[in-house]
């Protein structure tokens, strides 16, 4: 059983890597953030699969943390690159018409 769970986790990791590679070359930066989200979701699933496979219940805490912090990067991206984005050298924003 543990071997099968490991196989499933490997498959998930490969899927995430494939998606990551494809999006990385094709997309813009929002797509790359999406790819990281995909990796996060796959990471949660992998950790859940590894919990019974290794018999260590503490892995669930890691999955919990991953699920919790998945949103942080997206929010930080949005906060850093909003529409009123300022370049370091430009004067303060003028309200758009």
């Amino acid at each position, binding site marked *: 059983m*543990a*071997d*099968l769970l*490991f*196989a499933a*986790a*490997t498959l998930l*990791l*490969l899927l*995430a*890597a494939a998606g*990551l*590679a494809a999006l*990385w070359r094709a997309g813009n*930066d929002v797509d*790359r*953030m999406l*790819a*990281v989200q995909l*990796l*996060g979701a796959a*990471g949660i699933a*992998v*950790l859940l699969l*590894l919990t019974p*496979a290794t018999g*260590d219940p*503490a*892995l669930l*805490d*890691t999955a*919990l*943390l*991953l699920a*919790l*912090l998945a*949103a*942080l*990067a997206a*929010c*930080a*991206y*949005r*906060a*850093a*690159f*909003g*529409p*009123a*984005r*300022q*370049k*370091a*050298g430009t004067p303060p*924003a003028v309200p758009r018409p």
Partner: protein
Amino acid sequence: MSLVFDAVLCLVLLAGALGVVTTGAARPAVIAFIGYGLLLGLAWVRLAAVDVALTEIAIGSGISGVVLLRCVRALPAEPLTPAPNRMLKPLAAVVSITIAAALAAVVLALPEPAPSRAADVAAALPATDLGNPVTGVLLVFRALDTLLEKVVLLLSLVGVWALSRDPACRGRPAPLSPEPAPAPSAFLARVLAPIGVLVGLYLLWAGADHPGGAFQSGAVLAAMGLLLVMGDQIRTPAAESRGLRLLLLAGPFGFLAVGFAGWATAGVFLGYPPGAEKAVIIAVEVAITVSIAVTLGLIVLGPPAGEERP
């Protein structure tokens, strides 16, 4: 089968690291770094170091990501560096491959049987009443390291604050976003942050006997604070506030006070009073968790912007 999983994980991890260093632009490199931190967390899980995995996911991927994305915003669109020498990349590749090969040889030549302090820790752990050996090492056997690390955290905050335009370091750090938070971010802050605080406190509570502890808990609490700031639910705190400075100093100075008290109670610096070890350790852990959370959050927020003009 687990070996196949490890091999795939290692390859993806390496691909991620290569993605970070070979991507020219700043923004994709930082995004790749966030993914790399996540994969490193998985690698730590496979090395049976769940405490480290929790720290890596919370700090190495989560909070570092916020800092780095913020830095990308402040950078000019195209860096003003001259075109590098054409020989640079091949030369750098040769140097790095040589270093990696030497280190790989060292890894292959590690002594067998491996030296280990696990037995010593296992022998001494019952005296501390703790169940988690890593917490035991951090707070008892190598307490001096942890104490000094608290000081490093504090010093790095002092360094960040020293970059303020206000010589007296007053006022609030600039908000993370120049505009009001969009509705989804505000929703996340309102709903996810309370759950996250709960998870942070759980990690602190579980840290005595299971993976978790002050660092992981402090990092999660700091991340939730940042989420609240990004969702416009709380303002960034004013640097001159006495309460804030008390929270910053509670951990290092509380730990130091316990350390000096150790001379009186246990006859040695950083000794814990016999019979009350666990209570004192947990008190120290709570104090340093609070300080770690506040310090990490403030380091991310950056230098205070000077006194507000009404």
